């Protein structure tokens, strides 16, 4: 028979005012197994805790019930006290007779009866509690960063600078992401490449960063501290260590391709370097667009029809036989920084995007502004190369539009539109810039001043209203809109139209499936808590940084990247992790192998295991719960029809006993 100590707290007047403490103490004394029943004004105080510790030692208590406030407040306090006395901390139960009783029921008779029942139920429950020890999980001291944009770069550098190795995987041939496409960044008008490329070079030179570009993560298995990652290194067909980036190959390559770095505004060759400052500084052969793609001799051998690049290459860096390679890495923490794309939605098409060449989105205009872009920084109409005079910028194209786009605000467009208008005015002094807006969101540091600069110094005309139509007439783009502040309709004959389209997560957040983390309906990766845990996910060991989590600008991206790095470093600073032991346990002898538990587990913690006889023959498959991944929700336990799964700390025995104790009490109390 257990020896349970029951300690009832007065909490000053908080409990004692409405609950007759002595009655609860006397009542608890009658419960079978109650060896010690005490009360004290403040159980959580040092003397209060000491009372518990002394009682455990003096009376050989093996279970403890504290009837006091909510366990959400002081469960750790009393568990620590028990541990100090040598009692397993999971053999302590709290009965909430304050928040759920004395504070909400002012009739002392009813409150005391409820308190008595709550305490008895807690005693019955704790008698079935079992000692539990934290689960120790070793930690592989290496981090994986998925995505080589500014977020991934910052995270990788921070972790590597703290002395932990990092694997950084980027699927484009070069680091840089969307930030490398930008001309200047708001509000400082820093040259984007100039501030980014030093960081890119630092990554490539860092002894602790293993950089894999032109690579993708294909599979992730394992759990916090012990992930196994498979990475596919695509065949670049150019040996990076030999390539000098001289460019002779691209000059002679006969295969032109639309240049995706320039958002399709220019062409590159099948063998190309995305931009001059690419890291690694190497050309890449786009195998799908090379003239040798899919050529086969009648006997099935791969044929090389064109080797012009190889002939021109002096270091002989080109290798047509290169194959993709799958590599495996063990990591302890994963940071996802997969970034964003601009979404051309229905609204953009209605504004003439894709119909008129002179209607473009924000990134396309950005490339046009860039000195290394398709027009070397000159603003020219794609249709005829003429310099535009009147340019209309339309904000919120697709954003803030639940019916025809996405409901959220893409956050950066007000600022980059102001920047675009300002830069246009710098480059083409005789131009006129018109911005159609719904609101101006300029909340960052220096942002409001920047927008005012565009409005007042550069005389950009801001029109509060929406655009209903864009169509071509007499070589001009007619933009029909409204100015809600004056109440008048507005018609502008524009030479060019730039749309601030919606930001969407890369690939609609497909990476979430590979990592088994949650994403919302737009594909933005879900953080553990939007306010208090913005860089963690609900999957232990996986963190988020950058626009993959939600639309944001560069300062917030970099801040979040460093925050995610800090979380990763915190994880990797341990040699072993302690996980909560309230996990699921499968009775494998009884398991019928239906695996419905596996189907409901939110964490993929259930695995299939083989049961073999002594000769090694496979008898059947049974379920097993990995205590390192299990979070103890209990879905598996209820789903299992036979009742072959139980949750430590919330076991069937404990719940059964607790429910049993809530029944017959009124009779005993004589009420």
């Amino acid at each position, binding site marked *: 028979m257990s020896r349970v100590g029951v300690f009832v707290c007065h909490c000053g007047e908080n409990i004692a005012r409405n609950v007759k403490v002595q009655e609860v103490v006397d009542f608890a004394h009658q419960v079978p197994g109650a060896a010690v029943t005490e009360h004290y004004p403040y159980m959580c105080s040092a003397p209060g805790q000491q009372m518990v510790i002394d009682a455990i030692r003096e009376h050989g208590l093996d279970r403890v019930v504290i009837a006091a406030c909510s366990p*959400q407040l002081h469960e750790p306090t009393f568990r620590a006290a028990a541990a100090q006395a040598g009692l397993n901390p999971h053999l302590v139960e709290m009965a909430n007779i304050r*928040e759920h009783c004395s504070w909400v*029921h002012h009739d002392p008779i009813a409150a005391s009866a409820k308190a008595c029942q709550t305490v008895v139920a807690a005693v019955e429950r704790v008698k079935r509690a079992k000692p539990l020890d934290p689960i120790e999980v070793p930690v592989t001291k290496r981090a994986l960063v998925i995505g080589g944009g500014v977020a991934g770069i910052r995270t990788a550098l921070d972790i590597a600078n703290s002395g932990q190795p990092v694997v950084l995987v980027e699927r484009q041939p070069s680091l840089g992401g969307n930030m490398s496409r930008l001309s200047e960044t708001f509000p400082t008008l820093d040259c984007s490449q100039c501030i980014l490329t030093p960081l890119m070079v630092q990554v490539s030179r860092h002894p602790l960063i293993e950089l894999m570009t032109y690579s993708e993560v294909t599979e992730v298995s394992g759990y916090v501290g012990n992930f196994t990652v498979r990475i596919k290194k695509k065949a670049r067909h150019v040996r990076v260590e030999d390539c000098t980036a001289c460019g002779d190959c691209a000059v002679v390559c006969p295969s032109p391709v639309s240049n995706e770095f320039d958002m399709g505004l220019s062409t590159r060759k099948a063998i190309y370097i995305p931009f001059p400052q690419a890291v690694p500084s190497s050309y890449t052969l786009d195998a799908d667009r090379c003239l040798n793609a899919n050529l086969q001799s009648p006997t099935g051998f791969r044929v090389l029809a064109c080797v012009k690049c190889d002939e021109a290459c002096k270091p002989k860096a080109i290798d047509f036989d290169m194959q993709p390679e799958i590599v495996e890495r063990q990591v302890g923490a994963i940071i996802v920084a997969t970034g964003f794309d601009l979404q051309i939605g229905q609204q953009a098409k209605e504004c003439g995007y894709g119909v008129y060449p002179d209607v473009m989105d924000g990134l396309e205009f950005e490339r046009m502004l860039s000195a290394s872009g398709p027009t070397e920084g000159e603003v020219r109409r794609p249709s005829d190369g003429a310099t535009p005079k009147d340019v209309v910028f339309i904000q919120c194209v697709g954003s803030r539009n639940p019916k025809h786009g996405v409901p959220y605000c893409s956050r950066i467009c007000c600022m980059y539109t102001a920047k675009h208008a300002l830069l246009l005015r710098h480059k083409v002094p005789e131009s006129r810039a018109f911005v159609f807006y719904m609101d101006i969101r300029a909340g960052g540091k220096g942002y409001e001043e920047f927008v005012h600069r565009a409005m007042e110094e550069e005389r950009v005309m801001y029109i509060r209203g929406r655009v209903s139509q864009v169509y071509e007439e007499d070589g001009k783009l007619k933009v029909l809109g409204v100015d809600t502040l004056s109440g008048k309709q507005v018609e502008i004959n524009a030479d060019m139209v730039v749309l601030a389209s919606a930001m969407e997560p890369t690939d609609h957040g497909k990476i979430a499936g590979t990592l088994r983390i*949650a994403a919302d309906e737009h594909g933005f990766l879900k953080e553990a808590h939007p306010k208090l845990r913005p860089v963690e996910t609900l999957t232990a060991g996986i963190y988020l940084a950058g626009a993959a989590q939600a639309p944001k600008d560069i300062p917030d991206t970099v801040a979040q990247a460093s925050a995610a790095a800090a979380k990763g470093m915190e994880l990797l600073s341990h040699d072993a992790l302690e996980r909560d032991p309230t996990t699921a346990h499968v009775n494998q002898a009884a398991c*019928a192998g239906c695996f419905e538990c596996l189907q*409901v587990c939110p964490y993929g913690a259930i695995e299939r295991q083989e049961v073999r006889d002594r000769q090694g023959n496979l008898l059947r498959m049974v379920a097993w719960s990995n205590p390192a991944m299990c979070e103890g929700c209990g879905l598996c336990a209820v*789903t299992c*029809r036979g009742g072959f799964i139980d949750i430590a700390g*919330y076991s069937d025995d404990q719940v059964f006993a*607790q429910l049993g104790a809530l029944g017959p009490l009124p009779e005993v109390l004589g009420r």
Partner: protein
Amino acid sequence: MSDLATSAVRHAGAAAVPDGWQPQIVALVCNWCTYAGADMAGTTRLEYPATVRMVRFPCTGRMSPLMILRAFEQGADGVLVSGCHPGDCHYVQGNLVARRRFTIFRSLMDFLGIDLRRLHFAWVSAAEGHKWARVVKDVSAAVSAAGPLPRPLATDGWEGPVLPAAEGEGPREIPAADSVALRDHLRRTAVELLESGRVGVVIGHRRGSLPGRLVPVMAATAAECRELEWGEGAVNNLVTYAATALKGAEKAALVVKACELHALTGLIREGQIARERLLLVGLQCPGVRPEGGLAAKCLGCSGAPHPACDLLLTPEGVREGGSEAPAAANDDARDRQIAHLESLPADERWLYWQRQFARCLRCYACRAVCPLCYCSTCVADKHRPQWVPTTIDARGNGIWNVIRAMHLAGRCTGCDECARVCPADIRLDLINRKLALEVERQFGAAGLDPGEKAALVDFRMEDPEEFIL
């Protein structure tokens, strides 16, 4: 002592409510949301009735119907289940899976005539202290109106609501010559399958000891195959024997009626049988007559074999089947009976089911014959803890039949063997059919594709929840 079994006490004259009686309500709450929400109600010093006793869980996903039943069994007048709002579950999807479970459990309670004023579900978040207080007030009022949990009255006898007759044409009659031809094709095919080594055993029917009755046989020799029979005596669901037969043979042929084939879906989905180890043989069924009259499940059926069978036998010969097409939809004659029960007031439904359950002997024949009951030990036999009391009274019988129905919800495919073998003639088929209809109505899942998740293991954000406070 109060019991799970309430009775016709409401229309027989309610028991006198003791002076100053307050309902006892057990609340199963999740730690992250509702428990914290109740804490917040306390911190805000809101006042609400002292009727609720809290039981803390990590998640609504941990809350089993067995626990709700135990609360009632231990004398609670009402039960409240509360957790996080959908989308906010600390464990991502615990409440979403639980929501489907609660939906079906509640509709089962309603069908059995239990006063729904005693059973409530709510989503209360950690920020909703005020909502918690309001929910407790509303639930207390509802349970008070329902009164103390009534004591059981004697429920002997067979009187009670009478169900309308189940009606239907049934399958077309098979002319005698065709019957003989079918049987001969069956025997020949079975011999061929065995002798060619394509299968190691043929599961079918042979003549029994009583006239007109057929019994299952696992024919492992040509001689046994030549004794195979078919016809209206072929009542047994042979799928129940498939797993056992496959222990002794690599591949088995199974003579199967359309109503039985769907039981295979569940077994395949739950990893108990590999489809490729079975060779399904289908033939026109004349409808089975377990006790002289056509079985209720046959009334709306055409008797046509399921197109998914590997071999289809006709009086003319044998042809390959294996089509992906679904079987023709059948009207179920029992739907009228279910609709009738649903149209009655809850106390009359209660009386009907209490009379049914009172006859239960706990022989567990229903469990033994069900193809989908394959657990090595049943939860009803579990001792620590003993969720299902072994007492053969309203209490134990009620909990047994409820939990059995819940275990079959979304899985049972209506072979009706349980109702056929029940020595007490309990209408188990009605309960299972009702829950099958409910699963389809609420979640649109017919459960006939082994590749799809079973309905109660799956969830959608938009699952219905009008009953949740």
